[in-house]
């Protein structure tokens, strides 16, 4: 075992078949003073139709994990198994969403949404129809020919989500996708995301520093810690209502929130985390 065995992480694995398994992923970056290890033998599982959040203190290599899964960075050591088969990375099988909407400013909303279909070589007319259908479904009908520049941040991020979903990826990789938005828009888009994930039966890996968002959206939360970082713990999250507001109103929500803050050495309640204070 690469991380401390806990009853939580054991329970997290029994939910369903494993879709993506990371085993002993190591990665270091070259700096002037020599290699700086970032990931020190990271291992965890992502289940079919899972919603996993990866949280950790800033600089813990969350985005590195993200890029390794996406196949944009090659790990120094370790393996990834996709449905049991070893894979180098998931290029072409993941949908990718970041804090920046990454819409192409020279493409209209429709053309942006069609990007993935174009790359797959879908017949242009068919791709246009599909894209129009998705835009209408997500309330962006009528904005097909608008350029991203003319849309609000929330609408742009919604278009980015459609672009991700329309490619029908195996796994959605989200790197703090809503953190640049105001709270209202963010709650709204969290709802849109949850609905879409449910409807299309997608697996989601969310990288975030936002514990509130991780608890509200996830089925499981992977906590990274240490330098270089390892998996500190995996917490299954069980809440009755999975809507963004419903989840936050669940009485168990604040327990999860405080537990995770404790894991990250954030002092939330007077005294309870005092032993961690100097570490933070």
């Amino acid at each position, binding site marked *: 075992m690469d991380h401390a065995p806990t009853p939580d992480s054991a329970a997290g694995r029994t939910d369903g078949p494993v879709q993506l398994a990371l085993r002993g992923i190591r990665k270091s970056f070259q700096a002037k003073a020599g290699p700086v290890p970032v990931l020190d033998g990271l291992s965890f599982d992502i289940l079919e139709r899972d919603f996993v959040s990866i949280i950790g203190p800033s600089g813990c290599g969350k985005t590195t994990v993200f890029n390794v899964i996406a196949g944009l960075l090659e790990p120094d050591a370790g393996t990834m198994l996709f449905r049991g088969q070893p894979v180098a990375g998931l*290029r072409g*099988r993941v949908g*990718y969403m970041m804090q920046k909407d990454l819409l*192409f400013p020279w493409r209209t909303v429709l053309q942006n949404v069609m990007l993935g279909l174009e790359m797959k070589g879908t017949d242009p007319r068919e791709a246009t129809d599909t894209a129009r259908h998705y835009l209408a479904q997500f309330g962006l009908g009528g904005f097909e020919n608008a*350029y991203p520049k*003319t849309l609000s941040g929330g609408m742009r991020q919604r278009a980015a989500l459609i672009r991700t979903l329309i490619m029908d990826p195996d796994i959605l990789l989200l790197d703090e996708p809503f953190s640049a938005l105001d709270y209202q828009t963010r709650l709204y888009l969290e709802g849109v995301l949850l609905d879409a994930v449910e409807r299309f039966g997608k697996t989601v890996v969310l990288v975030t520093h936002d514990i509130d968002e991780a608890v509200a959206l996830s089925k499981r939360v992977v906590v990274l810690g240490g330098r270089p970082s390892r998996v500190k713990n995996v917490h299954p999250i069980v809440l009755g209502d999975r809507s963004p507001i419903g989840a936050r109103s669940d009485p168990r929500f604040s327990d999860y929130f405080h537990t995770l803050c404790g894991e990250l050495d954030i002092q939330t309640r007077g005294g309870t985390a005092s032993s961690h204070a100097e570490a933070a």
Partner: protein
Amino acid sequence: MTTHALKSAAQAEAERPAAIRRGPGPLARAVDTTLGRGLIQAIAVAVFFAAWEIAVDAGWLTEFLVGAPSGIWRVFRASLMDGSLAVDTWYTLIEAILGFVIGTIAGSLAGLGLWYSVLVARVVEPFIVAINSVPKIALAPIVILWFGTGFVSKVALAVSLTALVALIAAYQAARDADPDLQALMASMGASKNRIFRSVIVPSTLPAIIGMFRINIGFALVGAVVGEFISSQRGLGHMIYNASSLYDLNTVWVGLFVLMFVGFVLYHVIDVVERRILPWRQVSTAGGIQV
């Protein structure tokens, strides 16, 4: 909740406090139309030429050294009538345009191509900087030696002036292309060629078209300087010959036509830009005035 997301830029602009929407006063706003601005510009030009003519008539300026608007007009009409002005303009125009097109296309392609290989780019960078630091006009005598005194040498000189500008602008723009957009494409499984076509080329176009404006000027410099050194035709030839004969009015005709040619080409690029970059024309907020 969508209402917030849908709040238009125009609304946001309307909600801006009045204090920072200062802007022009009522007179400026009344005059600030296409017609109004054109009228002011026409008056400025008329006053300038009238003052010049009067100064020459009154003997404050010597026509022999500065020319005079009436004389310029006479030369202009005569050279227009006998067709020599059209021929000279045509030569210079074609030399400049050919030089611009060849230099700009070759330079841009080379600059964009450097995006493909960081190694090659790093190796050639000092050479590019070194070659670029040579004042290209200093190459003119060699270019004439190599390409003769005719049409080709002027085009070659215009190419030498524009190619490196294009290369550097295109390379710089390609290097500045958003790495996150490239990562997004890569995560979708895009090939390097695909990323080049879908991200690098479109994101460098604004910088490349901006460089067109600079290069149009350089191409004209190349054509005219080439004609100064040795030629039988062209506006540069016309200007050089006339000035050696102290025929200042003819020099001015050449200069004004050159100015006109540059002006027209500049606006042609505006039209091209609007065609190629429609996404840059949309404005987000109704222009903020300070």
